[in-house]
């Protein structure tokens, strides 16, 4: 088809040398808005506001309605504070594990393509595609009271840890994979030829190149873990001060019609999301700058 041929005839961004480039822009960086496009933008932004921006703003407004004091009270209430602590703590732990395992998995997938690679790629994507309540049942089958090998961690903090691990599995892997794939082998080979051991090469050449990707993946993994809800409903028992996570606390408030408390705790989660988005954005820019 004409359009397709035209696409392939375009100059291709060089992949081999230089840093990954910024997305190509049209020459003029965009036409000015005309009538139809202006209208379209207006409608689009209106829809986006009604669906996303205003509702999220409503959370912030509701949470701040009682002033700072009420907000602080709400999130430092014993059970709520425990929930936030547990969630953040487990998410941090899981992120550390993901950073290590994610890099290892990415390594094996990229540098060591063997018979099982496609299967592994498929497995890694499953936590993305599975509804979270199903993920909970999935983990319950092996790690719950009816486990065929008797590994029962239901209603424990370990369950929270494992659930987080499951849903955040792909993040670091998928962030690191493309960077690893792109990495210039020449520097590694040069180092190896100068006598550096494999581990030294890994530590001083490969990892620094991967660091922003790992960090970005880790940040996303943290944000995802902190937001998790569905898989914990059946698995963790939601025991107050023990296995209750922040999202469960929020739902308890919502169902109890204590929307102001719910909003206060939700603001904490939103702040985390915000920090993560900003961090990831900065990391991306730093890579581009470093070149």
């Amino acid at each position: 088809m004409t359009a397709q041929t035209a696409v392939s005839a375009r100059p291709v961004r060089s992949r081999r040398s230089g840093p990954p480039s910024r997305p190509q822009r049209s020459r003029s960086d965009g036409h000015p808005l005309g009538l139809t496009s202006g209208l379209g933008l207006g409608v689009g932004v209106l829809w986006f506001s009604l669906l996303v921006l205003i509702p999220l703003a409503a959370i912030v407004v509701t949470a701040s309605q009682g002033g700072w004091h009420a907000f602080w009270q709400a999130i430092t209430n014993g059970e709520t504070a425990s929930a936030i602590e547990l969630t953040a703590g487990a998410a941090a732990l899981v992120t550390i594990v993901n950073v290590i395992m994610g890099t290892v998995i990415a390594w094996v997938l990229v540098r060591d393509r063997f018979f099982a690679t496609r299967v592994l790629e498929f497995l890694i994507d499953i936590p993305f595609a599975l509804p979270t309540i199903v993920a909970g049942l999935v983990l319950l089958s092996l790690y719950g009271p009816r486990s065929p090998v008797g590994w029962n961690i239901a209603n424990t903090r370990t369950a929270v840890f494992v659930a987080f691990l499951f849903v955040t599995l792909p993040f670091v892997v998928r962030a690191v994979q493309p960077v690893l794939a792109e990495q210039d082998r020449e520097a590694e080979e040069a180092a190896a030829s100068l006598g550096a051991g494999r581990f030294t090469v890994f530590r001083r050449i490969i990892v620094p190149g991967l660091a922003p990707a790992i960090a970005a993946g880790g940040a996303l993994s943290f944000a995802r873990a902190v937001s998790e809800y569905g898989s914990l409903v059946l698995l963790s028992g939601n025991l107050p001060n023990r296995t209750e996570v922040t999202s469960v606390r929020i739902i308890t408030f919502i169902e109890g019609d204590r929307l102001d408390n719910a909003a206060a705790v939700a603001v904490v989660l939103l702040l985390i999301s915000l920090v993560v988005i900003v961090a990831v954005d900065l990391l991306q820019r730093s890579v581009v700058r470093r070149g």
Partner: protein
Amino acid sequence: MAEPSIIHKGRPRPGAARASKRSPGTYVLRVLVIAYLFFLVAWPVYLVGRNAFARGLTDLGAILSDPYTVYSLELTLWIAVASVAINTVFGVGISLLIVRFRFVGKRVLNALLDLPLSVSPVVVGLALVLVYGGRTGWFGPTVQRWGLTVIYDVPGMILATTFVSLPLVIREVIPVLQEVGDEQEQAARTIGANGLQTFFRVTLPAIRWGVSYGVVLCLARSLGEFGAVKVVSGNIYGETRTATLTVENEYLNFDKGGAYATAFLLTLVAVAALLVASLARNAPSRARSAPSRGRDVTEQPRQPEERR
């Protein structure tokens, strides 16, 4: 053609992966990775299938013949399709505006569009309740006066599902639009095509793989939504209970067999979506123009698609 989404980030360049020297370390790593993925993903997923068929086809048969469960599956589908349709129209439109036009606040809008991916689904539900809740919402009473129930009814669930999957089409279409460039469109204009003609005959065909890809991702995500829908639905059996809510309900109502059977169906759908996506990523135009996207984190924020 742009390489799509996060699911397929990081396909190595064909031929670039030289076999590294096989050291014992290699095998250790392989075993470690295989074991990790086996115990975390493979075996548990297999067990769901096994539990679903533990009593033969009884459980599966029971849920498929129960009109309420069938209804919940249909409802899930209906809501997902509605969400996908809305997000596709909005997504393509906004993508075009962002890539082809310049306006104040473009970068901010671009960044904001990724918000829904990092917000917890429970928070999404809360946000919608605060604004559209019938009695105490910001717009709730107004909307009710127009005869529309949002919260505790299907429209609210559509909103929730649309919210969580909003960026998925956009993130697939924007890179494609950028890759394709607007020369074709400009050419079309010089020969006298108007905006609509240009869109339907030049732009849309050029981005159709990106759009299709985004649609598949959006559909899979919408089918699997749980937390946000739970908050806004009221869980009305026979009215607003979706497939994911059914799984939870059956488990809590002493019907573990039914829960596993429904979960199995949902897993099948997820796996099917993955397979389609995984096959589709080998699209040839991508191979021709950019073997490996390698855009990774240096380009637009590309957070992986998530299931909640």
